């Protein structure tokens, strides 16, 4: 098969960047929405191209041959390998682009004036660059820059930025501090001191919203637009930072200790979901529980738990992205949604109700959906690493399942909502709903490809940790050791 050597990666980052510059000059919000849709759509197509290129044409061994626009233009060797797609980032890259595209697509006119498309495109470019970056300093720089768009939006909306600034400053400060020690001790060194590990771990915990560093997230959801908050958290960029910055240098026992804190957060956030009175705070805690589970899986650092965590990362990104967009669509029609009384929206928006149910259940790993096998792997892996305490994962999943159905009943049933205008789903929202449903169900019914690619990524992560890890690679669950499990 001929290789195209087409710079998919760079163009998919460049498009939203150019789009941000173009859209920022437009005064008409409708026109801005249309142009940003075009740019983010193009970015999504190129992102899919990059992923297909990696999976089916190039593969890992051809990365060094991957022609980079930067090399072509600047003739600078150092920049050659900055944007490189690998087994970890390959599916995350188009996932991020898809989330941005769907968010822009499903923005109704009621939200158009309040949602900044230019900032959204800019943050898309930064996030795509982050997920295609392997150079740690560049990742730190991009993570820091990525915190700007929500801050600018909060300021533009006249909202208090204190909580956000406080925690993001802490996050960036810890990143810089930790990495400074890594550089000072020597990057090639396999075992680093506490001075390097603890700040980086702390930064990851802050960014992922692990208790007690999570209040900035609830504050962001309350103050920013739903779309901006959703896009800022759903890709779980903190987990990416954990994989690139922390996992290569932290020993197993440190990670497993942090895993217990993440496990506590998963259960705590799941419980908090049940008592929320506002849909945005509910979504925030719901997301927190899932992102904590992803971190637990990463921090358990067995092959199965890593594979499960990477699978769940993908399924959570997709399903919670869809879940959030459904809530956002409902909010566009009815304003801020209360979870205290029944709303009864089902007769007006049955498709949104179905999407809500489907994406919510997919996020908790319901059978037949994208998250099922990943959740099974995650539970299996975590129970291996934490035999008794690991049962808490099941408790968190059960509570999350209850929370989804509870809020579904609150928002869509219990009474009859009276409206003088049609609240029916729009064509572009229907497209978004169907696209998400198709991905969730097809991915759920045929999970082998996804699981195999995540397993490969897990093995790659473990091989990078081989020098400091005490956990054997390819550690099987059950009695088998290093041999494929026999067919029953």
């Amino acid at each position, binding site marked *: 098969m001929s290789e195209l050597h087409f710079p998919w990666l760079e163009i998919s980052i460049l498009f939203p960047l150019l789009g941000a510059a173009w859209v920022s000059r437009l005064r008409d919000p409708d026109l801005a929405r249309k142009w940003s849709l075009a740019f983010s759509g193009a970015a999504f197509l190129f992102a899919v191209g990059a992923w297909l290129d990696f999976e089916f044409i190039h593969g890992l061994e051809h990365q060094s041959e991957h022609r980079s626009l930067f090399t072509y233009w600047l003739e600078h060797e150092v920049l050659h390998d900055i944007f490189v797609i690998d087994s970890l980032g390959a599916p995350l890259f188009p996932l991020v682009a898809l989330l941005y595209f769907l968010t822009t697509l499903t923005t109704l006119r009621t939200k158009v004036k309040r949602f900044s498309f230019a900032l959204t495109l800019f943050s898309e470019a930064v996030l795509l660059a982050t997920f295609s970056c392997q150079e740690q300093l560049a990742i730190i720089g991009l993570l820091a820059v990525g915190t700007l768009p929500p801050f600018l939006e909060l300021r533009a909306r006249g909202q208090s930025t204190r909580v956000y600034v406080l925690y993001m400053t802490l996050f960036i400060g810890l990143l810089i501090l930790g990495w400074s020690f890594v550089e000072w001790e020597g990057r090639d060194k396999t075992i680093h001191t506490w001075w390097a590990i603890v700040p980086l771990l702390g930064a990851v915990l802050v960014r992922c919203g692990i208790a007690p560093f999570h209040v900035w997230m609830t504050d962001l959801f*309350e103050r920013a637009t739903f779309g901006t908050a959703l896009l800022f958290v759903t890709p779980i960029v903190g987990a990416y930072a954990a994989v690139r910055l922390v996992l290569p240098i932290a020993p197993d026992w440190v990670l497993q200790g942090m895993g217990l804190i993440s496990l506590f957060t998963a259960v705590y956030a799941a419980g908090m979901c049940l*008592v929320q009175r506002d849909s945005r705070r509910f979504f925030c805690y719901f997301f927190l529980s899932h992102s904590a589970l992803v971190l637990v899986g990463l921090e358990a650092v067995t092959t199965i738990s890593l594979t499960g965590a990477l699978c769940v990362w993908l399924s959570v990104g997709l399903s919670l992205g869809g879940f959030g967009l459904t809530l956002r669509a409902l909010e566009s029609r009815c304003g801020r949604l209360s979870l205290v009384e029944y709303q009864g929206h089902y007769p007006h928006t049955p498709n949104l109700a179905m999407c809500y149910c489907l994406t919510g259940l997919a996020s908790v790993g319901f059978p037949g959906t994208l998250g099922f096998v990943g959740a099974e*792997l995650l539970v299996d892996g975590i129970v291996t690493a934490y035999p008794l305490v690991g049962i808490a994962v099941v408790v968190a999943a059960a509570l999350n399942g209850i929370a989804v159905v509870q809020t579904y*009943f609150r928002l869509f049933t219990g009474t009859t909502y009276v409206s003088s205008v049609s609240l029916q789903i729009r064509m572009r929202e229907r497209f978004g709903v169907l696209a998400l449903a198709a991905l969730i169900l097809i991915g759920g019914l045929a999970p*082998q490809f996804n699981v195999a690619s995540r397993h490969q990524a897990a093995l790659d992560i473990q091989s990078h940790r081989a020098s400091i890890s005490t956990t054997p690679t390819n550690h099987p*669950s059950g009695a088998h050791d290093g041999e494929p499990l026999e067919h029953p």
Partner: protein
Amino acid sequence: MFTQETIIQALGLTVVGAPLTLVVVLGVPTLLGRPLHERVIGRLVQSAIGIGLLAALVVLGLMLSTGARYLPVRVGNWVLIHDYHFSIKFVFDRLSVPFVILSFLLCGTIGAFGNKYMHRERGFNRFFMFYAVFVLGMIITSLAGTIETLFTGWELVGLSSALLVAFYQERPSPVRNGLHVWCVYRISDAALLIASVVLHHLKGGGDFYALVGTEQWPAGHAEVSSYYALVVGLLLLLAAAGKSALVPFSGWLPRAMEGPTPSSAVFYGALSVHLGAFLLLRISPILDLSPWLGAAVMSVGLLSALFSAYTGRVQTDIKSALSFASLSQVGIIVAEIGFTSLFIYFTKYDSIGYVFRYITLIHILGHGCLRTLQFVRAPTLLHDYRIMENAIGERLPRVSSGFWGRLVADNIQPWLYRLALERGYLDAWLYGYLVHPLLRVFRTCDTLERKWTDLLSGEIAAERKPPEIVPEPLEQLL
């Protein structure tokens, strides 16, 4: 050439494929916002159930003619990586085949009944969508050859049940009860998942063949220690208790009567309520290893039977009365399972014990048919009573309190009556000692977090401020 194995494989896949196809065919138009016409739905349901039933009967015929007692249908590995595999396997044996046939028969009956009962109902398509998911879940659970496959069907049954309880969703009461049912099911699912993980680690896989031995049901010898048998068995008992509404989870069963009569009949009278007992029968060799476990199963069953026999006497509506009657039989069935395990453990007369298991299975089949009949007859029964009373011009004579009324002192009877009416205060205990304290803790945490955020931000959170009026013209919604 068509070998017997190929034929069995094709038939087995047809049995599962028929309800799966029904789900897809009903689900896709629903997702596209173009639900099918009532008549088309009715025909599709009939066809799917008919094809599935026919395939199951042919499998039964083949098993009887060849003398085969165990026919596995391996679909393959759904997921296979170096360290983990998730295989899909269905098993046709003396436990699963009768249950599958019962499921198809009763679901087919209810499908036909529901086609008329739900005619012109606004949620006709929704009802049959959930019904299709339920049928699929039942078939998968019945035929599951691995614990993961069983878990898949278990969850499908749970979701469809909860959503059907909340079918009349314009009123808050069915929705509240639907949520209650879902909560109990999630506890049951969690227990089953934990048991599945433990078994996976003990045996390296979830195949029932490896878990309960190579002998066919009702025989079998599990190769685990009595300690692990107790742990796993108690988890599975908890899962079964939630699904079959055994004590202390019995409160959900009368609440589930909020749903349409067709779903009440098939779920809570006939099929879904027996799933717990089915699970215990499937893993009965594990129960045989621990007398404590057998005693626990028997105790839970007897307690549930006594509780429901007592509580059912004071119910004021026919469906609740029938639900408790159903539960009392399920309690007896579970007690039979526990008794059989104890019998095998202490006497070592395995062959007699296996006969008891057949009796339990026959009990399930008979009870399922009877209760379905009673549930679907219930709406017209009240109508018939009214006609009779109109004809004779007075109320029909009431049944006297009889033996128990003479036995219990007069001053205790109101207290007992109140206790029965409140269904043993089981729900009140669960809410008062488990649910509300937990929710109180989280609400306190929520309040503290909000205060902390307000302190850091220097202002009150947006949702507690007076609402801001944003002059958006309605036309912007169009």
